């Protein structure tokens, strides 16, 4: 049983959704980003997505694009990601959120080894589909890391089944067809997607893309096992530093316990 399995056992017993927060390493600099991740946990985040900055973030909207661009220009390296995981995982379970090429470049085997050594629990790979993931699945499972894939409203039942059979930890359901970023309303396609996904897995299903406040978190917590928040945390860090990150986490944390 991984730390992620334990987390969802706890939240399910408590009758609430888990709160998952994302921040990229190195924005605005490495120490501040790590401090903000820990502030997120202080505010009530249950699981941290430690973002690997990448030059070509194809599924990210403007907020995260600008942040990772700054992180890379400031000299952030993949090695810093493992430092962040090591520090963050002392406080809460941590997974990395990373596009595929930096993992492939390091090699799946070495990446998995270093992630495990740093205390990481798994990796979300937004541009890797199970069919292309062979070497990564071998490496992740060998180190007892959870490989986490995305599903989308456009995913056919056959594809949900592939993810259901391959994925570990929790399934990441993209609420909408689009890129990351805060939205006024969370797409109603998310609830239908979660229901369809549950026919193919007993794993927890988290919903991301578009959630930015406690009310939206409560709404998503009504049907999902985890509420995933990214761009809103990046914006909070940009506007108000670690304190703002903590306050946002508190608001969202209250939301996942309330349920709409």
């Amino acid at each position: 049983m991984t730390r992620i399995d334990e987390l969802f056992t706890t939240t399910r017993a408590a009758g609430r959704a888990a709160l998952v927060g994302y921040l990229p390493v190195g924005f605005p600099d490495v120490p501040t980003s790590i401090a903000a991740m820990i502030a997120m946990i202080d505010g009530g985040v249950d699981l941290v997505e430690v973002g690997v900055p990448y030059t070509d973030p194809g599924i990210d909207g403007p907020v995260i694009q600008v942040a990772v661009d700054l992180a890379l220009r400031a000299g952030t390296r993949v090695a810093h990601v493992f430092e962040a995981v090591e520090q963050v995982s002392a406080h809460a379970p941590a997974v990395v959120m990373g596009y595929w090429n930096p993992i492939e470049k390091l090699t799946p085997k070495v990446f998995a080894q270093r992630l495990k050594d740093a205390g990481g629990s798994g990796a979300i790979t937004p541009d890797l589909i199970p069919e292309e993931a062979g070497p990564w699945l071998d490496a992740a499972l060998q180190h007892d890391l959870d490989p986490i894939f995305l599903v989308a409203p456009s995913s056919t039942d056959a594809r949900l089944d592939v993810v259901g059979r391959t994925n570990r930890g929790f399934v990441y359901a993209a609420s909408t067809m689009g890129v990351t970023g805060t939205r006024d309303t969370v797409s109603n396609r998310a609830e239908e997607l979660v229901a369809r996904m549950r026919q193919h897995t007993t794993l927890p299903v988290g919903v991301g893309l578009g959630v930015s406040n406690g009310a939206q978190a409560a709404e998503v917590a009504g049907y999902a096992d985890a509420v995933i928040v990214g761009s809103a945390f990046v914006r909070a860090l940009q506007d108000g530093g670690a304190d703002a990150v903590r306050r946002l986490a508190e608001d969202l944390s209250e939301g996942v316990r309330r349920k709409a």
Partner: protein
Amino acid sequence: MTALPDAAGHWGPYGGRFVPEALIAALDQLAEEHERALHDEAFLAELDDLQRNYAGRPTPLTEAKRFGAAIGARVFLKREDLAHTGSHKINNVLGQALLTKRMGKTRVIAETGAGQHGVATATAAALFGFECTVYMGEEDTRRQALNVARMQLLGAEVIPVTTGTQTLKDATNEAFRDWVANVETTHYAIGSVVGPHPFPMLVRDFQRIIGVEARGQILERIGRLPDAAIACVGGGSNAMGLFHRFITDAEVQLIGCEAGGDGIETGRHAAPLTIGSPGVLHGARSYLMQDDDGQTLDTHSISAGLDYPGVGPEHAWLRDEHRAVYRGVTDTDAMAALELLARTEGILCAIESAHAFAGAQQWAAENGPDKVIVISCSGRGDKDVDTAARWFSLL
């Protein structure tokens, strides 16, 4: 070797699909539609009619006698510069526009570097009545301002991309983001043999007419195959179009000319097949310019159309199999070849294509006289007059 890719779009380790799950359904739909279309007589007849009576195919094979004499070889030019819109890009776009119609989609989007693919897409959108949005790096909108105006005149919306390096790579990222959000109504008409399966295969299939025609024309003209077929390579669509029909002709050397920029040794270039390493970018595994962390490196070329850190996966495969060879051609050598071609043949080619002419010049010098070379003259140089005039200090 020509039977590849496999069903999932792989040439050995290259190709495949490295994209968000949200796009998989659309890629499956496109792959199915393409497969059906290739066996549908009505589709093929409609495409053939468009190629002949709209785009102006077959394009001529011109013997470049004075240029050939200057470089010491017998040279034939496959005149894609004479196709409608001024480059080979129209071949691919007409095919994808027909597929768009068959899929019931009403909007097309595209990325463009030099603007040639953007112009071709805007042209097809006007012809078919599609809404059209073209993403172009802001730096490229400046150096290819004429093509921006052409696209706008054709009714397309041109969106300058200000992220990253503001060139073709970033325009491609932005087009993918648009596609994820609008995939139900929108087709992303990728302009080269890059991207997730089925794009590298599909674009190749629509471009291979270049080599099919050239092979027939050279046999008819001189009764034998050429010693070499040479083309410039950015993403690699005109090169793959020229090469594909010749792959099984072992006696024909296939030579791709990448952008050597300031020189391969300076690091300021766009030559992933010459000096890059395998990696994943824009949905497929291929050769790539990347650092030790797998981050994409900045590129440089005088040619906006070749200024791209990746390359099509089939080229990566041909390289590893030693069926094609790739070389870097510097800005300086390309511009000298552009001038030589203009002054010996009265043909002002695109700066992209000039890399192939410079590569041919080098290959002829290395391989002795009396060789026969077919060069893809992939585009005309009207769009580059400003850049060339500055290069030669005429402005």
